[in-house]
């Protein structure tokens, strides 16, 4: 019974903007596309610290955290979110990234535990498809 509920539940996704940049065009488009595709989406708004994002992710019981950043601070902020999740005892929550992120950094960030990174020009459909296939309900 419990198992059944879990598989039928809508995915809950956190779209978050860590750091100080205000470029939210992409994050908002993705949030809306995911909502239109039938997922539950929580959008944090801008200027979030890793602490704020981790606390929202835990309180909202989300199934994935999707981080968007376009200021160049991804090498610090993405791993920091993952580290703070771990410190809070959350080790099975997928973290996905997007933004202006050079390829060398993509490799390093994936090693640090980021599941996937989406760059400029990625279609909404590709992201919706990825989430639908790779993210599973955690509860």
């Amino acid at each position, binding site marked *: 019974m419990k198992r059944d509920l879990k598989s039928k539940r809508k995915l809950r996704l956190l779209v978050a903007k860590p*750091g*100080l940049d*205000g470029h939210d065009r992409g994050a908002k488009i993705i949030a809306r*596309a995911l909502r239109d595709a039938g997922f539950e989406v929580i*959008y944090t*708004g801008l200027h979030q610290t890793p602490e704020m994002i981790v606390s929202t992710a835990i309180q909202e019981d989300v199934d994935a955290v999707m981080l968007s950043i376009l*200021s*160049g601070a991804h090498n610090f902020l993405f791993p920091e979110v993952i580290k703070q999740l771990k410190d809070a005892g959350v080790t099975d929550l997928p973290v996905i990234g997007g933004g*202006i992120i*050079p390829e060398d950094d993509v490799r390093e960030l994936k090693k640090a535990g980021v599941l996937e990174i989406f760059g400029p020009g990625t279609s909404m459909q590709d992201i919706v498809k990825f989430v639908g296939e790779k993210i599973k309900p955690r509860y």
Partner: protein
Amino acid sequence: MDIKSQFTTISDLPINELYTPDDLPKDAYKKEIGLPGKYPFTRGIHPNMYRGRTWTKRMFAGFGTPEETNKRFKYLLEHGQTGLSVAFHFPTLMGWDSDSPRARGEVGKCGVAIDSLRDMEVLFDGIPLDKVTTSMTINSPAAILLAMYLAVAEKQGISFDKVGGTIQNDILKEYIAQKTYIFPPKPSMRLITDVLDYCTKSVPRWNTISISGYHIREAGSTAIQELAFTIADGIAYVQAGLDVGLDVDSFAPRLSFFWDIHNDFFEEVAKLRAARRMWARIMKERFKAKDVRSQMMRFHSQTAGCSLTAQQPVNNVVRTTIQAMAAVLGGTQSLHTNSLDETYALPTEESVRIALRTQQIIEEESGVTNTVDPLGGSYFVEALTDKLEEEALKYIKKIDEMGGMVSAIERGFPMAEIQRASYRYQQQVEKGEKKIVGINSHVLKDEPAPEILRISDEPERKQIEETRKLKQSRDNEKVKAALAHLKKGANGDTNLMPLFLDAVKVYTTLGEIVATLKEVFGEYRDPATY
């Protein structure tokens, strides 16, 4: 038989098969078009335009520590540049010092780190501020950075009436689009009018606000929305100046504009022509400005960053060329051209040089500067100019009915309009209704990534150390007293500029000043709608 059922601009304005004199109003030449250098300035603000003076090639730059950017500035000045354009890093834009936890990972990444007067002194070390003009892209804390700049001038023995430059200082478009806001709209508008009032009286060569459509368009607006919201912001600033008792002609000549130049060539040219005409009419008819300089819209342009693709990045040179051509044929006063690799990182020196050369080729080889407004009188361009003006005026009327732009922002109106336009455009791209070469048309598989500029973490360590050192070595009693005065001033209605000057001169940091203002003004929070 046409290949499509409807032809539109990139902003979805329908375009006819053919335009003839019947598409223009009667008396169009006399009333709508006129002559360059004459009201309503549709054809340009100077009678001889680029035959008299070419546009300024102003490339925006800055990263790392003030020491590094100072070296870069000196290099540029030695190579004949007379104007500087400063890009600040995000912590400065948002009012955090480099040693704040909020700045971790961001120091020196997207611009130069400026925390205090010490950094500003280093940034302009050996650069006489009466010989250069400096443009500073700074908004929420613009008044404080201006105070630091003036304090450097004072130390150089230069009087404020000899100091020239620009601060962006356009807070309204921050709520609408760029989102580097700190305080709520009303106290932010007070900071703007404090700058207007102070500069009008004490720094007469300073350009006080660069009213910006650029960020509005980059956030996903249409050309019409960019035109309408930017001019509505301009109206709000002029009204705010009048409301604090300034005479319109005392400050309006020091307002300038900043436009985004996207791919749709004729729509962009028409937008710039419409913008000039609208502003001239608004200033003359609505605000009763008599000085012709108050009616003249001067503007900077930048090619559209959001139009660039990470796919087949060399194609971006072609996009930028088309956009730069539109800016020139639209009569811009200065221009920044983007580099081909900016969807990956800050540009390399080589890609910046190609971007600069693009402007130089247009100027020196294409021949488009030989005559003034060569597109003027085209039935299509004039009809499209009229259409953009008509549609933008509808938005401005709606904003007026809401009680002006500050009220419209408080209701979330312009943000919601932009969000809708941006989502619609993305859907059109994904359905193939709008084409982007390399994205949904002429796609290549397995492209190699270009060489890009890397910025190390060294500047972050160095800058944090400098700011910590400063906080220990300065006279902290004086800092405390300056902040107490400032807090009292912010609670009242005195002009804060002199208090900012007092505070920065004793090396109070930007972060400390902003924190004090937050205690009085509060903070603006993202409504986080999508």
